[in-house]
């Protein structure tokens, strides 16, 4: 038993010695894996964080969102639908909502108008305000707004200031800032102007009695999908439930969003480089070494064990370091360049941090797609060399 342990210890020492001796090969594999894992991990950790945030938002969304379709396109919905929808069994409450985009310079921001009835509907207390207060039903039509941190920074305004926004109908609208969202809610509120429904309708010049969409809240005892099915016969109505929205956003942020392609492209490049480096090493020098080792009494399994240990050390070192670098790159630097190019985030304000989620699942997935190919590309050539007659191997290498 002691002899066996000593043998394996010696094999390990020999493999670690090989890492030093074949510096070029070690360096090629390390750099390849570092680059690949840094990029993959920065993208995956960011994607996981965004997905988690989007998931929470969708879960907090109304049970059903109703839109008006005309010619296959979404148009403002008439508030007369409210009485029709409210009469459907299972519907607890229907709220109006007007929202849209407003441009300041080259950036687009979100303007949301809240139904005064909905301001009392919250199931909790809104705490994510840095300064000022949240809207109340009394703010209807007063021009009072609550704004995100990013907007406050860009417009250089604080609570108590007045701002004038130009609408798309080229009208000036004066607003009074009564609240400022905190950093804690930046991922949700950074680009948001929150105002009363009346103010938003005026800002967007909505026709009388029309809003952007309707938010339907279903009784807790009812299944939203069942309630949605009762709306099938209502003309021009498109019903979106949370599940559909969640699937939609997951598709937007998830695997289809360039990440899958990125992952595979990087993986293929990494594997190609590894194969290249191995092809060099498995040349003459390696063949001679294997022949020599077998002459000294190494078995085929011993040689494979040596290469396996080498690969494991390089693989785990490079992949772990790469993931830590990727995490730092995304969490502390907001992944400049990489996220813009690979994921297509059109707009990342420097004021807020990307939500980075280092899930164990992603960590093990990255280990799986990097370390396992490395093991295969090193062990297989080692095995092929080891099964050749040692004398023949050395002669071939010397030739």
């Amino acid at each position, binding site marked *: 038993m002691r002899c066996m342990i000593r043998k394996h210890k010696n094999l390990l020492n020999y493999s670690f010695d090989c890492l030093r001796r074949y510096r070029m090969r070690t360096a090629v594999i390390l750099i390849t894996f570092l680059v690949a894992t840094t990029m993959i991990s920065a993208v995956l950790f960011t994607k996981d964080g965004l997905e988690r945030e989007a998931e*929470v938002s969708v879960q907090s969304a109304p049970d059903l969102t109703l839109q008006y379709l005309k010619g296959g396109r979404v148009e403002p919905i008439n508030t007369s639908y409210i009485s029709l929808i409210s009469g459907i069994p299972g519907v607890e409450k229907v709220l109006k909502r007007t929202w849209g985009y407003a441009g300041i310079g080259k950036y687009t921001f979100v303007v949301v108008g809240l139904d005064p009835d909905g301001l009392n509907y919250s199931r909790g207390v*809104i705490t994510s305000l840095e300064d000022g207060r949240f809207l109340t039903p009394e703010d209807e039509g007063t021009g009072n707004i609550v704004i995100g941190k*990013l907007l406050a920074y860009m417009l250089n305004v604080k609570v108590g200031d007045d701002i004038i926004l130009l609408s798309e109908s080229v009208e000036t609208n004066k607003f009074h800032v009564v609240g400022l969202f905190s950093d804690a809610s930046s991922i949700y509120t950074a680009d948001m102007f929150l105002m009363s429904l009346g103010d938003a309708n005026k800002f967007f010049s909505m026709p009388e009695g029309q809003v952007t969409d309707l938010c339907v809240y279903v009784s807790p005892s009812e299944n939203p999908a069942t309630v949605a099915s009762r709306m*099938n016969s209502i003309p021009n109505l*498109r019903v979106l439930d949370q599940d559909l929205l969640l699937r939609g956003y997951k598709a*937007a942020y998830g695997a289809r969003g360039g990440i899958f392609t990125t992952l595979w492209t990087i993986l293929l490049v990494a594997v190609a480089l590894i194969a290249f480096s191995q092809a060099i090493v498995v040349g003459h020098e390696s063949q001679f070494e294997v022949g020599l080792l077998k002459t000294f009494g190494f078995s085929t399994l011993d040689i494979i064990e040596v290469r396996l240990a080498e690969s494991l050390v*390089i693989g*785990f070192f490079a992949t772990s370091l790469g993931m830590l670098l990727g995490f730092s790159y995304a969490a502390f630097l907001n992944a400049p360049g990489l996220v813009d190019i690979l994921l297509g985030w059109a707009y990342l304000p420097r004021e*807020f941090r990307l939500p980075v989620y280092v899930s*164990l699942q992603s960590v093990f997935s990255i280990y799986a797609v990097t370390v396992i190919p490395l093991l295969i590309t090193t062990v297989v050539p080692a095995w092929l060399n080891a099964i050749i007659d040692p004398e023949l191997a050395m002669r071939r290498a010397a030739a």
Partner: protein
Amino acid sequence: MLPVLAIILTAALVSVSVYSESQWSMRKYDRALREVVALPSIAIGTNYEGTRNPLIEVFVRSLYDVPGGYDYIVSSSFIDTPTWLRDFRETIPGFNFTAVKG
């Protein structure tokens, strides 16, 4: 040196991951705010430009199309050719307007 560093770095990474998992599981969201505002998206735009819109502009930017065809050039650059994808024809609601409502 390298083997020792490999072990240390792997342990550090697993620690970061466990810490991140626990941070996310204990994270307190401004759920009340999100319920009141009720927009289902977050404040990050994508190539689609319409992330905060419930769905339709996210995928096809139909408001920017020309008569008779949906503009999928942007989404093609990001994902694939939408019409080839089963998701875009069936799974993603709202894309195929010939589908049964609800």
